[in-house]
């Protein structure tokens, strides 16, 4: 059979929790079929796109039967000629969730388009870390929140369970996720005698811009980010 086939995906094996969206039909803007393979052989081809933008992704490594090919500037790829049958295919590129699946490939050209999910934070979202030095001696805990100055919304550290204390010891770091990169870091040192008796030793409000995956150290002795 020399016509165009559609590879049948048998299962998604790997990935970081996201769903691989496998496009099993040809559509406008899809990869053009390559030269058909010789009689009795098969070839896998298609386009790899970003799941959020729909744009082709260049430089995605497509591995099947141990052979690696890379997508071109349009996100298109075509494997070497391979025997028909059931083969594992792996799509991987830094900054995207790796997708691995098993496909049934027939003789001739087999189209398999793939969408990859970016592991980068969405635009405007900043995930960052805050740690501290020089916690006041009379304090035993500290806490922080990042405030969106437009909405007034506070974003709390994400690395504490919902229940229980949300404060940190001197050597611990707070992980925050904010939809804005410019805001007000509210940071306090506390002495907590009991759950319902809290003393705020000092509080600072710092206007600052943060970068995604940034790490910041706050010095309680100066009230500034180091």
């Amino acid at each position, binding site marked *: 059979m020399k016509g165009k086939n559609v590879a049948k995906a048998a299962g998604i094996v790997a990935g970081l929790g996201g769903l691989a969206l496998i496009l099993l039909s040809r559509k406008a803007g899809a990869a053009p079929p390559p030269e058909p393979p010789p009689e009795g052989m098969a070839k896998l081809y298609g386009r790899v796109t970003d799941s959020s933008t729909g744009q082709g992704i260049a430089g995605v490594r497509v591995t099947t039967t141990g052979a690696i090919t890379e997508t071109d500037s349009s996100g298109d790829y075509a494997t070497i000629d391979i025997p028909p049958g059931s083969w594992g295919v792996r799509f991987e590129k830094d900054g995207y969730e790796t997708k691995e699946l098993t496909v049934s490939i027939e003789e001739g050209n087999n189209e398999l388009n793939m969408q990859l999910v970016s592991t980068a934070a969405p635009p405007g979202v900043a995930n960052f870390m805050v740690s501290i030095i020089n916690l006041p001696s009379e304090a035993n805990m500290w*806490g*922080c*929140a990042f*405030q969106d100055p437009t909405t007034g919304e*506070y974003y*709390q*550290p994400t690395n*504490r*369970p*919902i*229940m*229980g*204390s*949300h*404060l940190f010891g001197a050597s611990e770091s707070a992980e925050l996720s904010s939809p804005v990169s410019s805001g007000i870091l*509210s*940071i*306090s040192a*506390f002495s*907590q005698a009991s*759950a*319902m*008796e*809290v*003393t*705020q030793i000092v*509080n600072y409000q710092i206007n600052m811009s943060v970068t995604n995956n940034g790490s910041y150290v706050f010095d309680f002795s100066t009230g500034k980010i180091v």
Partner: protein
Amino acid sequence: MATIVVIPGSSVTGTVPIKVIPAGLSSSVGIILTTDSAGNTIAYQSAQKAFTSTAAVQNVAVPVTVPAAGGLFYVWVNVMLSGISIGAFAQGNTLMAQDVEVGEVIWS
């Protein structure tokens, strides 16, 4: 651990005694009800009730709507100061939401 019996779906008030030092801090407390003692399953979460600290014990009244489904609920108090979440702390009492309706006996 004391168990307070309430009517499912009813509106009650939980009064939280809390001491925040110093005075003048923008503070709030809320009440969370969970169906397990570890706090894994939240059945209800009240709005945060704002108050300004006085550096002395304050009794903050928090309106609570008891879950209509009824059952035993563990009580937690969620504390925030200056926008910073201090934590959600387990309380020493539980709420038992139960309601019994007895109809007329039918004889045969």
